[in-house]
C-alpha cells in the first residue's frame, strides 16, 4: 500500500529524497518555507571543487518532480503522533497524515553580524560568502567597487565556541578558495588574501583547488584569524590579524572583506524537535541514532534525517544521505508491513 512521507525542507536533501521515495513507490509530501525550492543552493552561483554550475545541478534536481506534492512558502505549524502515524498541520492550512517524516531542514547561515569585530552591516565593504555569490549571480553589489586588495576570512562563526558554533563548517575553506579564484578572474590586478586557521581541503580535487589558487591565481594565505577590522578615513578597511607562521601581527588595508559565514544549526530545529521528540545535540544539530551506522535515523520511530540537518555537509554528501534516507524509509515501511 502507498504510504505518505512528509519531507521538511526543499533543499538538495529534501528534493533528492523526495524523488527517491517516490521511486520506491511511496508518496512524498515536500514542504519548503521559502518561495522557491533549492535551499541555500539556489542562492549560490558556482560550486567547488571545479566551479560546477549551480543552475545545472538545480535543473537536474528539479527535472523530474512528477508525483511529488510540494508546497513552498509553507511552514510546519504542528506535528502530532498518533500510534503509527504523524499528523502534521502546515501554515497554509493543509494537514497531512504521514507514515514517516524526513527532516531535511538543512542549516542556517551563521549571522556574520554576530562577529561584531568584523563589522558586517557596519562597514561599507564587508560582505559574506552568500553576498558574494549573489554578486556573482547578479553582478550587482554596491559594496564591491573595483577592489584592489581583497580578504577572505575563513571560519566566521565556525570553530568558535564564543559564537556558539564549535564545529567546523566543512565547506567554507573550499568555498573561500573557489570564490577567491573567481574574484581574481574578475579583478586580475587585485591582491587576495585568505585568512585561515587550518585549510581543510579534505575532498577529492580540493587540494588541486588549493594548488591552483596558489599557483594559477596567486592567492596569498595568512595563517591566522582576523582579530579586528576598522575603517580608515577613506572608508577602506584596516584588517588586523596575526600571521601565526611568522609569529607577528600584521595589518593590511583592504577594499573588500568577505566573511566565510559558517553553517549553524537550522534556527527552527528546537521547535521541530519539541514537536516530535527527536534529539538535538549540544551543538544544535539533530542527533541521529548513531553517527556511524545509523546516521540517517532518529531516535523516534518513523523519523529520519538527511543532509545538513545533522551537521555540516557538502553537496555530494547531502545527496548521498538523501538517497540513504529514502532507502532507510522504504526499509522501515517493509519491516512494518
Amino acid at each position: 500500500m502507498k504510504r505518505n512521507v512528509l519531507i521538511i525542507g526543499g533543499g538538495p536533501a529534501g528534493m533528492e529524497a523526495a524523488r527517491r521515495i517516490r521511486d520506491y513507490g511511496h508518496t512524498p509530501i515536500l514542504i519548503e518555507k521559502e518561495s522557491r525550492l533549492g535551499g541555500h543552493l539556489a542562492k549560490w552561483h558556482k560550486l567547488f571543487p571545479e566551479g560546477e554550475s549551480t543552475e545545472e545541478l538545480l535543473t537536474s534536481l528539479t527535472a523530474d518532480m512528477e508525483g511529488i506534492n510540494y508546497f513552498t512558502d509553507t511552514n510546519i505549524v504542528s506535528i502530532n503522533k498518533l500510534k503509527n502515524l504523524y499528523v502534521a498541520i502546515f501554515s497554509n492550512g493543509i494537514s497531512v497524515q504521514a507514515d514517516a517524516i524526513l527532516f531535511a531542514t538543512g542549516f542556517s547561515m551563521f549571522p556574520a553580524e554576530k562577529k561584531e569585530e568584523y563589522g558586517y552591516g557596519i562597514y561599507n565593504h564587508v560582505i559574506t560568502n552568500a553576498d558574494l555569490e549573489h554578486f556573482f549571480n547578479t553582478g550587482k553589489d554596491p559594496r564591491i567597487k573595483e577592489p584592489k586588495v581583497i580578504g577572505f576570512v575563513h571560519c566566521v562563526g565556525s570553530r568558535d565556541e564564543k559564537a556558539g558554533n564549535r564545529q567546523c563548517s566543512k565547506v567554507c575553506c573550499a568555498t573561500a578558495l573557489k570564490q577567491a579564484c573567481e574574484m581574481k578572474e574578475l579583478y586580475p590586478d587585485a591582491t587576495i588574501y585568505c585568512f585561515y586557521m587550518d585549510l581543510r581541503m579534505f575532498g577529492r580535487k580540493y587540494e588541486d583547488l588549493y594548488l591552483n589558487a596558489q599557483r594559477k591565481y596567486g592567492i596569498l594565505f595568512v595563517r591566522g584569524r582576523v582579530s579586528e577590522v576598522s575603517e580608515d578615513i577613506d572608508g577602506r578597511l584596516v584588517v588586523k590579524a596575526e600571521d601565526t607562521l611568522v609569529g607577528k601581527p600584521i595589518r593590511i588595508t583592504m577594499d573588500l572583506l568577505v566573511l566565510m559565514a559558517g553553517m549553524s544549526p537550522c534556527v527552527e530545529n528546537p521547535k521541530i524537535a519539541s514537536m516530535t521528540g527527536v534529539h538535538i545535540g549540544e551543538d544544535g544539530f539533530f542527533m541521529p541514532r548513531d553517527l556511524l551506522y545509523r546516521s540517517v535515523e532518529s531516535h523516534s520511530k518513523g523519523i529520519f534525517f538527511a543532509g545538513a540537518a545533522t551537521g555540516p555537509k557538502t553537496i555530494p554528501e547531502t545527496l548521498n544521505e538523501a538517497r540513504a534516507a529514502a532507502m532507510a524509509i522504504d526499509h522501515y515501511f517493509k519491516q512494518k508491513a
Partner: protein
Amino acid sequence: MIDFGYSLTPSSTIEIDDADMSLFDELCAVEPDAIKCMSCGSCAASCTAGVFTDLNLRKVLLGLQRGCEEDVLPQLKSCMLCGKCHIVCPRGINTRHLILSICKIYNI
C-alpha cells in the same frame, strides 16, 4: 630632546600596506613555485645547515611574502645548497634554484 629614560618602542606589526612587493613579484615571475609553499616545514626540519643556524626556508618564503626580507634574508647565507629540502618538499618546489633566485633578485 629630553632623556626620559625610555622611548617609543618600534611596532612589531608587519604593515603589509607599506611592504614593497616588487621584488617578490619579480621572484614569482622567475620562480612561480615561490607561492606554492604550504608552510609544512619539511624543508626546515630536514635542513643540514638549519641544525647549526637559524636557516628556515619556510620562514624565509613567508618573510618575503610579507615584505620583511631584511629579517629573513641573512638566514640564506648559511645554506649549503645540499638539496635535501628539494627532496622532501611535498609540493615539489625546486628549493635550490629558488634560493639562488632569491639571492639574485634580493641581492643579498
